[in-house]
Structure formats: C-alpha cells, structure tokens
C-alpha cells in the first residue's frame, strides 16, 4: 500500500499570502502550492495511505490523489506516486468534475527560476575587471565588473568604455563577439 512521504531534502519552504512556495535547490525551480495542495503535502508523513490522508484532511480521496500526482510529477515526494490506470483515472476525473464547484482542487504551479533558465543558454560565465568610473575616467579601484554570457555586466563603466581607450586588467569574455 502506497504511503506518500513528502521530500524534505534540498527544499526551502516559504509561506506566501495565499500559497506555499517550495523551492527545489536541485532543479532550481519554484513550486507554488495552493492551500489544498500544501495541506496534502504537509500531511505526507509516510505513515498514512491515500484513504487515511483523505480522512485526516477532510477531503475526498480523488482530491488527494490529484494532489499527489502533481506533487510527484514535480519531485516533491520522496517516492513517486503510482500512476492510476485508465479506468481508475477516468473515474477520478468524473469525481473531480463534480467536486470542482464544491471543493478547492489542488494546484501546483512550477516557476522556472533564472538559474534554471540560463542553464540552457549558450556561452559561459566569465569575468572581467574594470577600474573605470561611470564617466569613463581611470579611477582605481571603483568597481569590479563581470561578464554574463558574452555581455559585460559592469554597471560602473560607461557604455562607450574607458575614456582613454586603454585595456585595464586582463579580462576575457569568451562569449563576446560570438553573439
């Protein structure tokens, strides 16, 4: 008998006004759990079956199953929830349709963070040094700038670069010129 257990490692959980935010440090993704999904997730202690969980939180089993499916798909359970077979799935859908107006259905939204989005980008991270102030005057040491995938992110430098046109410290941005 499947007894769901909430994953706890490498997760940060924060409460937002109407939902629970779970940040997965492994995938760099954030998951927003609505109140029903959060309730199910918090009760997944590995001791209760789906039916017992449903009783414990006062929700129909179909709602708990739907929540577990969503949580499992996002890696928020220690052990994935078993997938429902065709007829059982259909039956659950019918129940959920009837419940849709009476109960708050569980909902888990996944937000891809910046780091996760950047993993797929081309170019690497590199660094450059800048000893120029915002007016382009050599003024050591003001700020240390870095490149972001071929684009210099040094905010202290003027867009046109150093006033004297000199190269400052050895800095190399492998992505520069490639994009």
């Amino acid at each position, binding site marked *: 008998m499947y007894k769901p257990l909430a994953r706890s490692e490498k997760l*940060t959980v*924060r409460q*937002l*006004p109407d939902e629970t*935010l779970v*940040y997965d*440090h492994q995938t*760099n*993704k*954030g998951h*927003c759990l609505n109140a029903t999904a959060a309730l199910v997730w918090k009760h997944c202690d590995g001791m209760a079956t789906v039916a017992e969980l449903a009783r414990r939180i006062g929700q129909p089993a179909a709602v708990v199953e739907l929540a577990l499916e969503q949580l499992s798909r996002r890696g928020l359970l220690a052990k994935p929830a078993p997938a429902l077979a065709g007829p059982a799935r259909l039956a659950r859908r019918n129940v959920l349709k009837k419940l849709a107006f009476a109960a708050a259905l569980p909902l888990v*939204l996944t*937000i891809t*963070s*910046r*780091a996760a989005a950047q993993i797929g980008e081309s170019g690497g*991270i*590199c*660094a*450059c*040094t*800048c000893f120029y102030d*915002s*007016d*382009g005057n050599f003024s050591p*040491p*003001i*700020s*240390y*700038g*870095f*490149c*972001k*995938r071929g*684009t*210099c*992110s*040094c*905010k*202290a*430098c*003027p*867009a*046109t*670069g*150093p*006033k004297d*046109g*000199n*190269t*400052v410290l050895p*800095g*190399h*941005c492998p992505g*520069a*010129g490639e*994009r």
Partner: protein
Amino acid sequence: MNAPLHAGAALRIALTGAWRKHPPGPIQEAMLPAMPLLLSSGAHGLAWRRIPRRCQSEFAPLRDAYRQSAVAQLEYEDRLRRVVDALHRGGIDALLLKGWSVARLYPEIGLRPCGDIDIAVPPEQFEQAGRILQDHPDAAEVDLHAGVADLDDRTWDDVFQRRRVVRLGDMEIPILGAEDQLRHLCLHLMRHGAFRPLWLCDIAVAAESRPADFDWDYCLHGERRLTEWTLCALALAGKLLDARIDEPRAQFTAPDWIIHSVLRDWSDGASGDSHMRDPVPLVRHWRHPGRLLGALRARWPNAIEAAFKVGASPRTPWPVLFHQLRYAARRAVRLPAKVRRASAPALPFQVHESESAVTPACSR
C-alpha cells in the same frame, strides 16, 4: 469604476504603506492602466498585496511576477550564501549593500526584487576579493565595490566597525549598521535621481524598522551637503509614500522641484541614470544628425542627479536648470574623445543585432 489615474500618481498610491505588515486598504481597478509601470518598476509584489480579491484576475500579471520574484529571491539567497562564504574563507572583510540586506526588512519574501549582489570590501582587499570571485560560479551576479561609495564621508573602519551580522539560514551575512544603511540608501537614491520607486520604499522600510537604539546623530553626522540630501530623501519618503519618521532631527521639507522630478520620472517609467537611458552611444548618432536631437533629449540630465553630482545642495539657491546645464556641459566635454574613438576602425564595444543594447567589450 473610478477614472484612470495618471501613471506616476497610481504608482505612488499603490506603494503608499505597501511595505508594512498590514498595508493600507486595497487599491482599485483604476490602477489597471498603471500595471505595466508596476511591473517594470519591480513594484509588482507590493502592489499585488493591495489588490482586492474581486479583481485579482485582472491583475494576474502582478501575481505571476510576484511569484517569480519570490523564487528569484530564494535563488539569490543561495548565491549570496556561496559568495559570502567564498569571501569569508578568503579572509575578506565583506559587507553586503542594498539587495537582500533591505529585502529582508519587508514582511514577505519576493516583495523587493533583488538584482546583483553588491559587496563592499576594504579598498586594500579589493584585488584579492576580485581574484577570489573571478573563478566563482556566481561571479556574474556580483558587483564588487572598494569601500562604500555613497558613504564617502566615513572611513571604511568606522563603517565596518558598526556593521551588523544577520542570519541567512546557516550563514551569517555582514551588512551595514542601521544608521549607515539608512544614510547609504538615501544617498544612493539621490545620486541616481530617485528614478526607481522601490528605492524610496527601501528608505521607508529601513526608517520604519530601525532599531530602538538607532543613533540619529550618527546617521546625520558627516558632510553637511550629504546630510541635507539624506534628510531630503527621508522627507520624500514621508511626502510621497507616507513613511512614518517621527524624529525631530530628521525633519526637512523636500523642495517642490525634487518632488516634481521624482513623479515625472516615475510616470515616464525611467529605467536608469539619464546618460544610460539611450542604450546606443551618442557617438553612433553622430553621423545621423536627424537622430542626434532625440538622443540628446534622452540624455538630458535628471534634475536631482545633476544637482547631486555637481556638488549642489537640495536647497540650492540656483535654478535647477543651471545645475543640469553644468552637468550636461561636464559630460559634453568628454564627447570629442568619444567621437575620436568611434571613428577608429575597432570600437571598444559591440553592437547586438537589434542595436538595442550596446555593451563595452569585456577585454578593455
């Protein structure tokens, strides 16, 4: 439904008191036209807290952006821990400026989006810190500062001695002392012409959450002109956002020209210092006189930024146009050198395909 509000005024209403644990009453549908401005200014989280339930669906983009900011903050905290740990292991006395050090004062995560990690180190450790961060995986997100530029009238030792250490999970993060932080936030705001509404919220939240033993005398001690700008920023937070700063020593009346300048920039959705607003360098417009006028107009200095940077006081007896002209002239003096460089075959910057962003070459 109420009449649509002027964008800057709508922003001001949405942000008034929004940083408090219990913000003022909900804002209305009339705010809808200001949504792009709320999103672009980073004020989406604060505004979302004040959207009434009955019209939440119309303002859904604010909620989505707020969720994104909350996730981004958790990610930022991870990076911050790694960066501070690396510097600490390298024996660097680092201080976190702005960013998370202010975001932590807001009642919920994600209300104050954090961008880069601004780290100040003692000037003599600057190069060493740079070497440590150069190979660090989070280097791209770090802005390293030698000393604290906006606290020029204090020594690094004084500032570092008054630092506070706050916990972030299992890590201790050194940040500015409360007095230095408030002064720094104020001067940073004014140096950049107060174009970003969230920076004024930062001042409001820092002022309202100051510790019981906050030393106003120390906060307001220093170069007189800078203290006046500090007081002016506090007055702005009180006037525009209803920040509660019940301290007789902090009383000041922000001049009208400053208030007008701020509201105008907020309405325009200004997104950077005046000379940075046109991403294409002026020298590239030089060969197209038709575009030059527009480019010059885009660069016309923000009144506050100009007055601050030419060394004037907020109570300057001169018309502000005088300071804008002085600042513009100072910048124009450097133009010939820029033109010469632009005429050279190899430009020290690259132009992206869209020409919407021009960035300096990193090997300079």
